[in-house]
C-alpha cells in the first residue's frame, strides 16, 4: 500500500482532499453512479461534498426505503447498490433493509455517519453503535478510525460485498473524519488474506457429479438465487437441455431458468407447483445449485427428496451440509462449476421420467376457480399484468399472498426480473426496491405488485417517484386483509381473524393523487385489462388499486412442518 501511494505521488495522482471529498471521490473511482439516501447532522459534510459531485443522489423519505432501493438496484442490475444515511435513527432505520439484503445475499454497501470519534461511547446525540447492531446481518462492517484508512476501507467494502457469495457491507464514518485531510489515492487492489472464496469446483467432485447424472434415471435440478448472482443461467440451460433434466426454482431463483420452457417445473416448496414437489419426492438424483435448503422449500426435512442422491453446488461452504446431508458437495461459483459440469455431461434423451413429470404437469396445473361474479380473482390479476407487460417487466413484490401469486402465475424468462424479499420476508420491500430497479434500468418497464398491508409500510415513497418521475407502476392487490395472515387464521385458527382485517384502509387512489401520482381503481374484472394499460401508458409513475376477491387462498400448499408429498389444495379453489 505504501508503495502504491509512492507510485501515485510519482504519477502526480495523489492529491490532498478532505475526508468528505475523499469519500465522494472514492465512490466515483469505484464506479458508483447512484446513491439512495437522506441527510442528517452527522453526514452534513458528506452531503456538502455531494452538492456538486458527479453522482446521482435519490432522496427518499424514510431511510428504510434507501436500503431497499439500493437492494432493488443491485438485484435488478447485478451492480452493488449504495445507500447513505446519518447517524443514530438514520442508521437504525437501515437495519431491516440490510437484514433483507443479508438473507437474500444482495451486494449492498451502506454508509452511515456517526458522531465524532471523541464522542463515541458517550451516548452522544444521535449516536448508535451501528457496527455492533449490524454485526449479525452484514458480511462485514467497518468503523473508520482514521481518515487515512477511508479509501482502502471503501475499496474493501465493495470488494467484499460483490465477491464470492454477495452480501451487505456497512461502513460507519465518524463526523470529524470528514473534515480531516489525507493524501488521496484509490487503491487498485485489496489485501484481504482472510477472504479468499473458492471459484473453481474440485475436478474430481465435478467428475463424480457427471457420473451421477449419467447414472440417474429420475434427476431434478433444484436451483436458486446463487445461479442468478453468479450469472450462470446460460450454463444451467445447457446442462438441463443437454441431459434433459427438469428444473425447479426457488422463489429467489425465479428467472434463472425460463418459466415458459418445457423443462421448467416452476417454483417448489410451500406454495410451489404440485409437479415440482412431486418430482422432488420421487427423484433419484437432486442437483441443487445455488440454494440453501430453506425450510419454506423443504418442508419436513425427512420427506425432502428421500430417495435421492444429492449433489450440492454452492460458493459458500457453510451452506453445504447445513440442513441436509450431501453426497457430492462441490464448493465453487455456480457458473464455473456448471460450465465444467456441462463439458463432462453426456447428452441424454427424453426418458420415462420426463413423461411422468409431464403427466403430473397436465393433471395438476396451477389452477383457481373463478366464480364468474365479476369480481377480480387475484390470480387473474397476475395473469393480466403478465399479458400487459408481455412477461418482460421487472416485477417487484412485497410479502404475503400477492407475492406467492406473482411467483406462481408470472412466468419469468430471464434472471434479475423478479425482485422479492425471500429470506427475511420484509413487507414494505417491494415499492422502494422497484424504485431502485427503475433507476438502474431506465429502459425497462418496472412494476411493483404489492398488497394493501405491505404497501402501507413504505407508502411515503410515493413522493419520491412523483418528484423524480420514476416510472414505477404500483398495483395493489387489495383484499383489505393482511391476506396471508388471514389465510393461516382461516386454515389453522378456526377463522378467528385476529387483527388481520384491514377494512379501514386508506383510499389508495386519493393517497397517490395527494402525492401527485396518477391513480386508478378497479373493482370489476372487465375493467382490469384496460385500466392496467392506461397506467402502463402513463409517462411516469402510476398506481392501480385493484379490489380483489377478499378470501381467496394461495394454493396448493404444504402445511408448515409437513412433508412435500402432503400438499393440500391440489385441485385449486
Amino acid at each position, binding site marked *: 500500500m505504501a508503495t502504491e501511494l509512492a507510485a501515485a505521488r510519482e504519477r502526480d495522482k495523489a492529491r490532498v482532499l478532505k475526508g468528505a471529498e475523499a469519500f465522494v471521490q472514492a465512490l466515483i473511482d469505484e464506479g458508483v453512479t447512484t446513491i439512495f439516501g437522506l441527510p442528517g447532522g452527522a453526514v452534513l459534510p458528506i452531503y456538502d461534498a455531494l452538492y456538486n459531485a458527479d453522482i446521482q443522489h435519490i432522496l427518499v423519505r424514510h431511510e428504510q426505503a434507501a436500503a431497499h432501493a439500493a437492494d432493488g438496484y443491485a438485484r435488478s442490475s447485478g451492480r452493488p447498490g449504495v445507500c447513505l444515511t446519518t447517524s443514530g435513527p438514520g442508521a437504525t432505520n437501515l437495519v431491516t433493509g440490510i437484514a433483507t439484503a443479508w438473507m437474500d445475499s444482495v451486494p449492498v454497501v451502506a454508509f452511515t455517519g456517526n458522531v465524532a470519534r471523541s464522542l463515541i461511547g458517550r451516548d452522544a446525540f444521535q449516536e448508535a453503535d451501528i*457496527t*455492533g447492531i449490524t*454485526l*449479525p446481518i452484514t*458480511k*462485514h462492517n467497518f*468503523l473508520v478510525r482514521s481518515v487515512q484508512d477511508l479509501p482502502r476501507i471503501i475499496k474493501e467494502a465493495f470488494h*467484499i460485498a460483490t465477491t464470492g457469495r454477495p452480501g451487505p457491507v456497512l461502513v460507519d464514518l465518524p463526523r470529524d473524519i470528514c473534515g480531516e485531510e489525507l493524501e488521496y489515492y484509490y487503491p487498485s487492489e485489496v489485501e*484481504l*488474506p*482472510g*477472504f479468499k472464496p*473458492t471459484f473453481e469446483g*474440485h475436478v474430481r467432485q465435478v467428475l463424480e457429479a457427471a457420473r451421477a447424472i449419467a447414472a440417474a434415471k429420475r434427476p431434478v435440478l433444484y436451483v436458486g438465487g446463487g445461479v442468478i448472482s453468479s450469472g450462470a443461467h446460460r450454463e444451467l440451460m445447457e446442462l438441463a437441455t443437454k441431459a434433459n433434466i427438469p428444473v425447479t426454482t426457488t422463489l429467489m431463483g425465479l428467472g434463472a431458468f425460463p418459466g415458459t420452457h418445457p423443462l421448467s417445473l416452476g417454483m417448489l416448496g410451500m406454495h410451489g407447483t404440485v409437479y415440482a414437489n412431486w418430482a422432488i419426492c420421487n427423484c433419484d438424483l437432486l442437483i441443487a445449485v445455488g440454494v440453501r435448503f430453506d425450510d419454506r422449500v423443504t418442508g419436513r426435512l425427512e420427506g425432502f427428496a428421500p430417495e435421492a442422491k*444429492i449433489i*450440492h453446488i454452492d460458493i*459458500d*461452504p*457453510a451452506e*453445504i*451440509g*447445513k440442513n441436509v*446431508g*450431501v*453426497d457430492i*458437495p462441490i*464448493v465453487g461459483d455456480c457458473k464455473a462449476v456448471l460450465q465444467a459440469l456441462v463439458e463432462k455431461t453426456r447428452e441424454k434423451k427424453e426418458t420415462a421420467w420426463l413423461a411422468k413429470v409431464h403427466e403430473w404437469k397436465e393433471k395438476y396445473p396451477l389452477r383457481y376457480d373463478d366464480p364468474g361474479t365479476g369480481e377480480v380473482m387475484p390470480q387473474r390479476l397476475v395473469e393480466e399484468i403478465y399479458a400487459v407487460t408481455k412477461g418482460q417487466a421487472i416485477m417487484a413484490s412485497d410479502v404475503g399472498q400477492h407475492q406467492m401469486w406473482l411467483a406462481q402465475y408470472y412466468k419469468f424468462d430471464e434472471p434479475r426480473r423478479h425482485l422479492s424479499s425471500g429470506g427475511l420476508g420484509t413487507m414494505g420491500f417491494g415499492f422502494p426496491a422497484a424504485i431502485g430497479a427503475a433507476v438502474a434500468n431506465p429502459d425497462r418497464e418496472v412494476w411493483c405488485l404489492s398488497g394493501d398491508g405491505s404497501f402501507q409500510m413504505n407508502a411515503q415513497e410515493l413522493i419520491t417517484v412523483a418528484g423524480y418521475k420514476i416510472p414505477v407502476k404500483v398495483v395493489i392487490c387489495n383484499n383489505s386483509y393482511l391476506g396471508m395472515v388471514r389465510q393461516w387464521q382461516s386454515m389453522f385458527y378456526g377463522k378467528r381473524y385476529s387483527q388481520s382485517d384491514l377494512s379501514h384502509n386508506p383510499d389508495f387512489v386519493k393517497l397517490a393523487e395527494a402525492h401527485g401520482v396518477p391513480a386508478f381503481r378497479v373493482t370489476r374484472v372487465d375493467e382490469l385489462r384496460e385500466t392496467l394499460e392506461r397506467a402502463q401508458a402513463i409517462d411516469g409513475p402510476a398506481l392501480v388499486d385493484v379490489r380483489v376477491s377478499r378470501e381467496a387462498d394461495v394454493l396448493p400448499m404444504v402445511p408448515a412442518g409437513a412433508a412435500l408429498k402432503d400438499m393440500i389444495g391440489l385441485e385449486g379453489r
Partner: protein
Amino acid sequence: MKHTLSVLVHNRSGVLVRIAGLFSRRGYNIESIAVGVTEDPDISRMTIVVEGDEAIVEQIIKNVHKLIDVLRVSNITSEDVVDRELALIKVATDSHNRSEILQIVDIFRARIVDVSDRSVIVEVTGNEGKVDAMVQLLRPYGIKEMARTGKIAMVRGAKQRANASDTGRAAAR
C-alpha cells in the same frame, strides 16, 4: 464431544465480538476461549473449546472461516498437541491443614503464590485433566475463589500453524 479449535485472527478491535457473536447467534456452545497475540503482533491466536458432534463442529469451522478477520481455522482435537491451562485457586486454610495442602500442591508441581492467615492462593498449570484433579482435591478444604484461563494449545513438532481442516469439504451424509 469436546473439540479444540485453533483460530488465527487479525489483531483488531472487534474481532472477539465477531467470533463470540457468531457462536451465540448460531446456537453453538463455547466451553472456553483464550486469546493472545502470536509471534506476529498483528495476529492473535484464539483457542476455542466447543462441545458438539462432528457435523456441528464442521459448521462452526466453516462459519468462523467466513469471517473476514479470520485467517485460519484448525481443528486440532485429534492432533498431537501440547495444551495448557492456568488456574488460580484460593483455598481456605488454617494452621492444621496448611501442610496437607502444601503436600498436594507439591505433588502437582503447582505453587503457592499468596499466603494469609486463613487462605492460600494456589497457581497450577497443566492440561485440563490435571487442573480438574487439583480442584477436586482442594475442594474439601473450601475453595473460596477460582480463576481459570481456558485452554491454549500448540501442535507438537516443527510444523507451524497446523493446516486448517479443509473448510471447503462438506460433511458426508
